[in-house]
């Protein structure tokens, strides 16, 4: 969009115009050293930085240590440690307005049940519900971007139940919500969460044992479904389009010998440069009070190397009668590509990524509205989904490669509301098969999970009719509905 069209737009809110103008200002700079080869891959859409901007002046994802904030308050914000429930929620709302990210809104707002629960002593149910309801309503109406993410679980607390009750009632798109589930999570809590997900399309479910084995206990799920260190985050997320890369190859061997190593090499070169600029030139870590007050630590940051279009890459390289998701040889080729990609990425070390021993973390990117013909991450294309059992088993095998996020989404007939235990069985089975992250929603819900974020169908219709809407993610959702067929996901009966 030109600056003139942003200023005069009829469908952007004031806030959306402001952010769009800031993006244009940033993009008028050319401060990154990008090689000709990397730029060529960018121009061809093989490397894509997801509109991170030409001069990144904050990390893409920031995951503050909210426990520290609650324990110590904030000198910079002039806040003492909260002493009661209302005080806590008010302080958190204040802090959220000062946590930046790629979207300018916080992508992680805390393990909310754990933060809230200690403040519920001597608070009756009615007061607790009203306060938490008000808090969630405030978040939805002021953080106008669906990549804002809260976590609950794996223990069942009084606050967990209240949050689920509130989410079931409000049916808002923000915050995105993940329930972390461990082997010890009580069934009753999970059933309540599943029931909520069949009404408001959240929470999603994260497999604690998998994340903990990679990060230890101090991780969080931020933005779409990204596993990151608490008190850290990710400098950047840049993604590699395996589909377009495969189209360049003459055959499988040419892909493995030449194009995949070259794609990864140029990705790493480009990402190293973005990380360098944020770390060494932007002065973000030198100026932010989040750093000074130990809410984030530079050495807990990493960077996420994204990929997408695996299905199409496989279909392009495999024999013509072999389709990804439907044929063993095709699926095996998919795993071979991921194995190779994983090795190539782990071969590189960048000392600025000290949180992860210098390594980039792989991320299965969920796609953007302009990705026509290339599926998110390792997902089976919409319209080609196999039987759900086969689908979950196929998908689960890819999840081990992606500490910084991968997820699969399943849409169910509303009749599943009458048998939540059935969903519990499916969830449990998925985790046993090695699934890291999974989402369920009902086909008749107004809220729909586009890819890694939530949008209301009714808001898309409003935007379609030319009206401005509060959430900037509605526009992304509309594009995804038109181009990626996300409303046409298979309904599981």
């Amino acid at each position, binding site marked *: 969009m030109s600056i003139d069209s942003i200023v005069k737009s009829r469908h952007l809110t004031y806030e959306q115009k402001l952010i769009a103008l800031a993006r244009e200002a940033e993009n008028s700079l050319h401060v990154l050293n990008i090689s000709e080869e990397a730029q060529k891959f960018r121009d061809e859409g093989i490397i894509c930085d997801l509109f991170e901007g030409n001069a990144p002046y904050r990390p893409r994802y920031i995951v503050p240590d909210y426990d520290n904030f609650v324990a110590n308050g904030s000198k910079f914000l002039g806040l003492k440690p909260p002493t009661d429930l209302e005080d806590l929620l008010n302080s958190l709302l204040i802090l959220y307005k000062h946590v930046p990210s790629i979207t300018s809104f916080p992508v992680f707002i805390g393990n909310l049940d754990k933060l809230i629960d200690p403040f519920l002593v001597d608070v009756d149910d009615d007061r607790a519900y009203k306060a938490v309801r008000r808090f969630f309503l405030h978040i939805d109406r002021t953080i106008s971007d669906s990549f804002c993410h809260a976590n609950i679980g794996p223990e069942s607390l009084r606050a967990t139940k209240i949050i689920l009750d509130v989410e079931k009632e409000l049916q808002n798109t923000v915050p995105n919500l993940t329930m972390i589930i461990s082997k010890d999570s009580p069934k009753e809590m999970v059933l309540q969460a599943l029931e909520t997900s069949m009404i408001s399309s959240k929470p999603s479910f994260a497999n604690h044992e998998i994340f903990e084995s990679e990060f230890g206990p101090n991780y969080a799920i931020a933005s779409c479904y990204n596993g990151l260190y608490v008190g850290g985050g990710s400098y950047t997320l840049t993604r590699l389009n395996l589909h377009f890369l495969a189209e360049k190859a003459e055959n499988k061997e040419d892909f493995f010998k030449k194009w995949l190593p070259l794609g990864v090499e140029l990705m790493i070169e480009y990402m190293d440069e973005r990380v360098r600029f944020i770390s060494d030139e932007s002065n973000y870590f030198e100026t932010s009070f989040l750093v000074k007050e130990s809410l984030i630590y530079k050495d807990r940051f990493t960077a996420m190397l994204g990929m997408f279009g695996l299905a199409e890459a496989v279909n392009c390289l495999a024999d013509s009668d072999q389709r990804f998701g439907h044929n063993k040889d095709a699926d095996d080729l998919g795993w071979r590509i991921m194995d190779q990609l994983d090795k190539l990425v782990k071969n590189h070390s960048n000392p600025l990524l000290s949180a992860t021993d210098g390594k980039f973390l792989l991320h299965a990117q969920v796609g953007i509205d302009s990705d026509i013909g290339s599926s998110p991450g390792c997902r089976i294309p919409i319209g080609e989904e196999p*039987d*759900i*059992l*086969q689908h*979950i088993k196929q998908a689960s095998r890819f999840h081990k490669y992606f500490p910084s996020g991968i997820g699969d989404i399943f849409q169910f*007939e509303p*009749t*599943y509301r*009458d*048998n939540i*235990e*059935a*969903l*519990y*069985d*499916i969830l*449990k*089975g*998925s985790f*046993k*098969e090695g699934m890291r992250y999974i989402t369920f929603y009902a086909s008749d819900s107004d809220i729909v999970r586009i890819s890694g974020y939530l949008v209301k169908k009714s808001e898309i219709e409003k935007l379609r009719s030319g009206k401005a809407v509060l959430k900037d993610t509605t526009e992304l959702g509309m594009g995804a509905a038109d181009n990626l067929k996300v409303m046409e996901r298979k309904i*599981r009966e």
Partner: protein
Amino acid sequence: MNLKINKIINFSSVDGPGNRLVVFAQGCNLNCIYCHNPETIDYNQEGYMIEVDDLVKKIVDAKNFISGVTFSGGECSLQYKEIIEVCKKLKKHQMKIMLDTNFSESKEVYSELSEHIEAFIVDLKAYDENIHKRLTGKDNLQILQNIERFYDKIYEVRCVIVPGYNDNEKEMISMFEFINSLDNNINVKLIKFRPYGVREPYDSIESPNDDLMEKYLKLGNKIGLKNIYYK
């Protein structure tokens, strides 16, 4: 040993507790006017043979995801010997098995089956013998006796409410009193007649409305049934 089946559904949320793998047997000994998969009635019309071992393999493959297996149909108890073989082979996997049956075979059949399965899901089409004949082509003497014999092994009794046939208070009272006299904790599921898949001319019967279903639900409660609900 082979079973003749119409299809297998890996995941189902409507055929017993939790998520279940459902095996639809081919062939039925009743001919219900509201059958929504009439292609399963004639043993020779459709379906395919599956080796007991292959079926067991398919079930074990889904083991992590299911609360159990339900044999449905058609009428699965017509192939009870084969089903018992499957049950025996699944024993070491601690698989819970239910049979969705019309209970019209001999008591010996269900007696043998009951040693190998967790529970029966019983379709009771009508209590009144004449209504039953109009709905299914056969009487219900054996069925009612089997319900009496095996009630402690029944997970759920299901009844489809079909306007013009069994949708009257007298019939409902008789049916509810019968079940209540056995065990008032048995799950009773009242199902609205729906025209999908039903043969002509019965597909033009209208579905009963919620008010009627609600009325029968209250009637069931009044009689003493504790776990009655409708769909």
